[in-house]
Structures are given as structure tokens and as C-alpha cells.
């Protein structure tokens, strides 16, 4: 899962980045609104965290443009402005959630999970399909009731596939959810992880769609 973090306070940004990486997300961090817009235009993100007071392009404008483009990526606003009218304004701009500084990072994680869950159309915290249950918060995967031990990358790929079962996820999209900027991408990593997932779960659980990518079996 790849998250864009647009926060102009470097120290706070670093901490959030470290925290989300411990959560198993891939985090791209920018300190300017215009850079965030470029990143959003060129990459697929599963969630965006936007500080309202960004230089270059304000968080409000960034969100406005994002929604004007009909980009439905879950967006959580992070701000020091906590008055009720500010919250209402932020949510009406198209934010999925609104977090007031200083916030608890556990809460941030929970809200990110909730925002992504809602975007995928799930209400329940755990995702299930074809006997596989994936609990994002607990980072646990069960197959037919038995816990399965997955690496962080395997978990991320399974998460990307199980979010919208039946939909094809491209190789590039999977890579995006595994690697942040500057990370070395090995050419056959995705294949290796898919192979391992098939081995640990079920051989026919993940279908390969030629030239397009992968999807979960129905």
C-alpha cells in the first residue's frame, strides 16, 4: 500500500513516515503542495495525507484539484485548525477524514485503514475472499481459518489484490504499492512474491491475466 504524505513540517513528516513504514506502508513524503500534485498525477496512491497549510499549493487547493479531476483516492487532512467550521470546510472540500494536530499515530493508522476500507466498499475491518481473510489492522492473514505467515511485501500484494477481488491489478500497480521513490526495484520481484503467495495459500488463488496483471480467483 502506497501513501503520499504532504506535510511541510519536516520533523513531523519524518515521524509519520517512519510510523507508517512500521505499519507496512510505502510512504512518499513531500513538503510542498505543488510537488504533491505532481506525485498524485504520476503515481497511484492508496491514500493521501494532506496538511492544509502547505507552501506552493495549499492543501485545500490540492484537494480541490484532486477532486475536480475525479480522483477518488482517500484523502485525510492533517491540520492545526480544529474549529468546527474548519473541520466542516475541510470535509466539504472532499477530504475523507480530518485529523487535528497533535494527534495519536495509532489513531492516524486506524483512520487510514478506515478511509481505504470505505473507498473499497467494505464496512468490516477484515477483508475476505475465497477463504482468505486479511486483517489490515492486526496484519494477520488466515487461510481457511488457519493463520498464515506472510512477509510485509507478500502481505502488501495480497492486500492490493483482495481490496477489490475480481479486479485486475497491474504489475506496475503492485510495484507502486511495494516501493517508494528511490527504492531499487528488482525485475522479477512481483513474480517471486506471487509465487510465494500461491505456495503459502493456494496454487489457484491468484490468476495471472496475460499482459495485464493479476487478480484473485472468483
Amino acid at each position, binding site marked *: 500500500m502506497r501513501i503520499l504524505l504532504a506535510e511541510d*513540517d519536516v*520533523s*513531523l513528516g*519524518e*515521524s*509519520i513516515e*517512519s*510510523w507508517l513504514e*512500521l505499519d507496512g506502508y510505502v510512504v512518499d513524503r513531500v513538503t510542498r503542495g505543488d510537488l504533491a500534485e505532481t506525485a498524485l498525477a504520476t503515481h497511484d496512491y492508496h491514500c493521501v495525507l494532506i496538511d492544509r497549510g502547505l507552501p506552493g499549493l495549499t492543501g485545500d487547493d490540492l484537494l480541490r484539484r484532486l477532486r475536480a479531476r475525479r480522483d477518488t483516492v482517500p484523502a485525510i487532512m492533517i491540520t*492545526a*485548525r*480544529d*474549529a*468546527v467550521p474548519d473541520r466542516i470546510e475541510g470535509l466539504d472540500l472532499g477530504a475523507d477524514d480530518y485529523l*487535528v*494536530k*497533535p*494527534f*495519536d*499515530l*495509532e489513531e492516524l493508522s486506524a483512520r487510514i485503514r478506515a478511509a481505504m476500507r470505505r473507498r473499497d466498499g467494505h464496512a468490516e475491518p477484515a477483508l475476505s475472499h475465497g477463504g482468505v481473510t486479511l486483517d489490515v489492522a492486526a496484519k494477520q492473514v488466515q487461510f481457511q481459518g488457519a493463520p498464515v505467515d506472510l512477509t510485509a511485501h507478500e502481505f502488501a500484494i495480497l492486500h492490493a489484490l483482495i481490496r477489490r477481488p475480481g479486479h485486475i491489478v497491474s504489475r506496475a500497480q503492485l510495484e507502486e504499492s511495494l516501493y517508494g521513490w528511490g527504492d531499487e526495484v528488482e525485475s522479477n520481484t512481483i513474480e517471486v512474491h506471487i509465487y510465494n503467495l500461491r505456495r503459502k495459500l493456494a496454487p489457484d488463488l491468484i490468476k495471472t491475466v496475460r499482459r495485464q496483471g493479476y487478480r484473485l480467483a472468483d
Partner: protein
Amino acid sequence: MRRPRTSRPARGYSLRRRLITTTLGSSILVGLVSTLIVLAIARNEVNDAYDDWLEEGARLVLALGEGSIGRDAAEPRPIGAQPALRLDYQLVSRSGEVLLRGEDAPKRPFVDPARRGDRYYDVRADGEDWRVYVRHHDTLGFSAQVGQERDDRSDLIWDMLESLAWPLVGLWVLLGLINGILIRRLLTPLQRMTRGIEARSPSDLSPLADDSQAIEVRSITAALNQLLGRLDRALEAERRFTADAAHELRTPLAALASRIQVLQRSHPADQAPALAVQLQRLRADMMRATALVENLLQLARLDPQSADALPRERIAAQALLQDAADACAQAAAKRNAVITIDARESVLYGNRDALYTALRNLIHNAVSYGRDGGQVRIAAQRAGQHIALTVSDDGEGVAPADLERLTQRFFRVLGTNVAGNGLGLSIVARVAQVHGAELRFGPGLNGRGLGVTLLLPLEGAAATVRES
């Protein structure tokens, strides 16, 4: 720098009354002076006229005297028919003997006949002051002395004064009336301004309406508006500073809190127990700093100057009390305190966030300063035109000396060993203030502890009751 005047003059005066007395007083003074001048001129003129009469009389007497010397004095007729023009004459021989005289004329000559020359004399005879003209006969040697009592002359002046006085007094009364009415009318813009200022709400620092045509009133209005503007800007600056400072502190606080959390996660308690304890303490300190900043922001936001802008609504009492109690449930559980809710009134009217914060602070205080395993009771009940929100505990209570200082910012009762920043009750007091509510401290439960009551005006009453 001018020395600022710290106190008003002890006794004020009415500008209107003073204007009337000064205009009237000066007109009376001017009237008196001009009357005196008129009288002085009149007196001179009268004197000149009478002197001419005397001279003329003397000539006549001399002419009459020529024919009557040596004869018995005939019944003389006073010269001048009017009583005010009574002249008295003497015919005096060269040796000083009065040959002939008028009825009221003194028996002795007015003037010693040895004195030569036809002229006027001011003499005293028979206890009266006289004005006398002496004329000598060129050949026969006797002289005619015609005198007039000074008093007769003064009487004329007094008559004149008397006839002048009444119209003058009448004019003064008329002047006083006209001045009174005009001055009262001219000063109405000032009264209007006073009423306008008095009718304002304490938080209204908007400029005064400049509707008077008078330059003086306009300049007062302009000066007042300048002052109001400066005051408004100063208050606004202070508000903004508190809000900005608290606001700007949030991001670094968030950075600090986040870093601590990342550290806690990367050094779990089972791997580095000593570090975990320190990190937990660090986090608690962090939360205290955060709470302080939040409280400062709340205080800034609840500024009475902007109380009018605070949105008010009907609030379900039970839910509000329950929410506030829930917010303190963790703290209560830690101290084994039992919170009971008794909402006898169903609807409150006010700002929900503000009332929630106030109740939460009160409950938090009751739990923190109450006793272990104690009781905390939250009640909402009708009290006349108010709804009384009461939070009571059965703890140690507060010493009477400390009671009135409770709502001061940063005041904390010493020796309680409870963490806090002393802003909680200030916020409650501010919430009460912006709601036009009264904050009362009394005994708590079962005759012990502290009971804090917020007397919230009913809906409708809240609109007219503002902070005092």
C-alpha cells in the same frame, strides 16, 4: 507625555446649567454696567440742565429783586412749577443780610457774599447739600443766590433707574428662558450620543454613528471612534496572539508527540523496559503540554468580545451530561470514583462545545480532587429562570480562602498532588461568562467536598443577558 488622569473630578457639573448661568450672568453684568453708564450720562445731562435753570433763576431773581428792595417781602412764588424743579432763592445784601428769600430757602445766605464772581457753588446748609448759583447785581451790590437740593436732583436719577429696572429684569428673564431652551436643544446631540453609548453591549466596539452636524460633537465622535478603533485592534491583537501562539505550537507538539510514539513502537517494552518507562513519562509530559495549549486555545476562542458570534442551540441535557461523564470515565475508573447523572431538565440552551468543555473540566476536577472511591454527581435541574448544572464531589473540598481564586488563570490549590495547569476552572468561568450564566461554589455531597453550579439562563433569557 501628558499625565494620565486616573480619577474623575469628584463633583461633576452640568454643562447646560453652566452655559445658562454664564450667558445669563454675563448679560446681567453687561446690563448693569450699561445701566450705570446710562445713569452717569443722564446725571451729567440732568446736572447741566438744572445748572442752566439755576443760572436762569438767578437772573430772574436779580431782576425781581431790583424792584422789591426795601419793600416787604411779597409772598414769593417758587420758580418752577413742578415739584421736582423746586428752586430756592435768596437775595443777599453786600453785608450778608438775606433781604428776600424763598419759602424753603435757608435763613442764612448759601454763600458768603464777600465772594465775588458769578458762579456755581456746592454748599451745605440746613443739613442739606445744595447746588447754588450766585449772581451779583452790577450796580446795587446785592446778589441773587438760587439753590437746589442735591436730593431733588438724585430723586430724578432714582426715578429713572426705577423705570429702567423693571424692563431690564423682564429682559433678563426672557433671555434666561430663550437661552435655556436653545442650549437644551443645542446639547441634544451630546445626550443622544450618551444614550447611544449607554445602550451598547459591552462587547460592541464598532464606531459610533456620526449623525450630528455640529463640528464639536463630530470631533468628539471622531476622537471616540479613534479610541474605539485602537481598543478594538488592541483586543483583536491580544486575542489573535493567544490563538496564533497556541495554534503555532500545535505542529511542533505534534512532531514531538509523533517522534515519541515512533520511538515507543521501535523500542517495545519487552525489549527495552527502562527506555519504555522513560518514553511513557515523556509522553505523559507531552500530553500535559498539549492539554495546556488546547486550554489556552479554548480560552482564546471563548473570548467574551466575540461571545455574540458563538453559535447557540438547544442541547439534549442527558446526552451532554453523559458525553462529559464518558470523557472522564477513564480518570474516574483510575480512582474508583462513581459518576452519577441526574438530568431532570431535558433541554439546555447554549453552545454545545463550550458547555461540554465546561462540564468535562468540572467532572475532571471533581474526580481528580475528590477522594478515592468517591462519588461525583452531575445534575441538571430547573432553578427559577435558570437551569442549574451542578457537579459535586465528596472529597476534601476547597478552603474558603481559595474559593474566590479558583477561577483565576493558572491558579492551583497547593499541596493537592494532582497534575493540571490551573486553566480548567478559568475556562468554566469563561463559558459561564459568554453564556450569561452565574458560577457558584458551594458544599458538595453529604455536606462535604465541593459543588460547582453553573446557572444557565433559559432560552430567550439568554439573548438579553450578557456578561456583566
